[in-house]
């Protein structure tokens, strides 16, 4: 049973007042708040189990290694990867994309090759590919979006050709919440011989993800957007591909043996985890999965879909409010502008009312350019948000509109 009050109670931060009002936290697309069980495990790590992983023979080192590797297995199940070695811990989504841009790029990208990305990507899924293309004299091609922000699949198919080596798209576009048709994108890319990276930073916390069913080659996501600590993320990659591409960074833990003449790299997954990894973060990520599982992905999805529909209905009633990114396939975010009113002003007034939203270009300037604007106000939802909070948001918007026009 889905009991919102019970869920909210697990998030200590939500109990506070901001500017004298009950906090209404609607900036979950940027980062989500943490439940007690995640905070507890981090606390426990430092008060009971802390020791470097994969190093010592002693009790504590074994304990933290066990928890770290246990977390990897929990995450494998969470996205239904085939084997545990396919789960690589990274610093986050951006780090995972950079890893692939480097390692996959080293092995498979050559002069004249093409990488396809979507017009609605955030900067993390644009800039690493630009850097790679510059290094390798390869080219970026952009899958265009229509006026609603949905990717145009027919154009995508036309862009695919035998020079296309990689397609990198978001599962969910961060600035609009639109769910991209990745099943079809992946299938088409494979038909044409290209590999596919899916950026799941805005998806795994909202939707069921099954990487085997999707058949994507890489899937990346961040811990802090799915109720875990910051500074940790995951790269899923198909085992045979991860084995083929070279390591990204060198250091301890990613080697079998080192001499000045020759170094042998470790097997997966450690090959890509140089240095002491953020094991506390990784363990918190496993616990975050436990939290999500305790609610149930289906329950969570149902609740968040209800919130989105309610917010769309509610906000559509406001005169002079335009929603950017219209689609039947959306999750947990709503981006909007008030006629002739700057998003910054709206954000400032909402803040005064205790409502946290994101304003600006959402690290997705090309998307804003596509809509012919410089930014929006974005309200984004998590499992602990309520319809009452959306009512407060809607009243807040009306108040801001009155003050600012």
């Amino acid at each position, binding site marked *: 049973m889905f009991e919102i009050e019970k869920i909210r109670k697990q998030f200590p931060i939500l109990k506070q007042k901001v500017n004298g009002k009950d906090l209404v936290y609607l900036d979950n697309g940027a980062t989500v708040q943490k439940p007690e069980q995640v905070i507890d495990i981090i606390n426990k790590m430092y008060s009971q189990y802390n020791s470097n992983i994969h190093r010592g023979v002693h009790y504590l080192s074994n304990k933290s290694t066990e928890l770290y590797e246990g977390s990897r297995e929990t995450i494998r199940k969470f996205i239904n990867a085939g084997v545990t070695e396919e789960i690589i811990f990274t610093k986050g989504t951006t780090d995972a994309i950079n890893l692939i841009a480097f390692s996959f790029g080293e092995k498979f990208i050559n002069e004249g090759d093409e990488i396809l990305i979507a017009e609605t990507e955030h900067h993390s899924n644009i800039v690493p590919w630009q850097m790679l293309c510059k290094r390798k004299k390869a080219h970026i091609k952009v899958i265009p979006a229509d006026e609603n922000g949905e990717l145009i699949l027919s154009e995508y198919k036309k862009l695919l050709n035998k020079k296309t080596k990689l397609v990198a798209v978001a599962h969910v576009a961060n600035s609009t919440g639109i769910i991209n048709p990745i099943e079809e994108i992946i299938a088409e890319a494979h038909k044409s011989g290209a590999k596919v990276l899916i950026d799941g930073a805005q998806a795994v916390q909202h939707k069921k993800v099954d990487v085997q069913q999707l058949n994507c080659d890489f899937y990346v996501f961040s811990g802090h957007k799915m109720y875990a600590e910051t500074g940790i993320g995951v790269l899923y990659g198909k085992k045979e591909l991860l084995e083929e591409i070279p390591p990204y960074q060198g250091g301890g833990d990613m080697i079998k043996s080192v001499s000045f003449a020759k170094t042998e790299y470790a097997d997966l997954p450690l090959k890509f985890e140089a240095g002491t990894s953020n094991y506390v973060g990784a363990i918190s990520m496993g616990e975050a999965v436990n939290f999500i599982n305790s609610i149930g992905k289906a329950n969570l999805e149902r609740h968040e879909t209800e919130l989105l529909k309610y917010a769309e209905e509610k906000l559509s009633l406001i005169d002079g409010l335009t929603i950017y990114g219209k689609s039947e396939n959306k999750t947990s975010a709503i981006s909007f502008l008030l006629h002739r009113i*700057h998003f*910054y*002003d709206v*954000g400032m007034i909402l*803040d*005064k009312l205790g409502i946290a939203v994101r*304003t600006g270009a959402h690290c997705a300037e090309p998307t804003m350019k596509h809509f012919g604007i*410089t930014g929006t106000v974005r309200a984004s939802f998590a499992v602990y948000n309520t319809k009452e909070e959306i009512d407060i948001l809607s009243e807040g918007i009306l108040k801001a509109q009155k*003050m600012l026009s």
Partner: protein
Amino acid sequence: MTTEQIQNEIIDEFSVFDDWMDKYEYLIETGNTLAPYNEKNKTPSNLIQGCQSRVWLDAEYKDGKIYFTADSDAIITKGIIALLIRVWSEKTPDDVMNTDLFFIDKIGLRENLSPTRANGLVSMIKNMKAYATAFKAKYES
């Protein structure tokens, strides 16, 4: 009036508001009274790019004094700009360079100056001081 006196005057005006809404409404009103900015001067070199709101700033030196004009696409930012111009326009380069800017803190608008707001105001203050330094070097040495 000295820059210090003007700042104290602004603090006095804001002291009557105990509610944030009244304060912001006054700020918005102030923004609306800002002298119009010549659209022709909305050049890239006059633009201070914040990742939230944009600010344009231009300055002229006449008879020993600096005349600032500025604009922003966000009205709250514009309100603060109007206050800054009130403090610094028609002042000498020395006045601007030597001002200890204390009024923003005192009227409780500090949050608008935090770098995370990225509204261009922090850079605007820096640029206003830079204009003063440049005018002094060009015309007064």
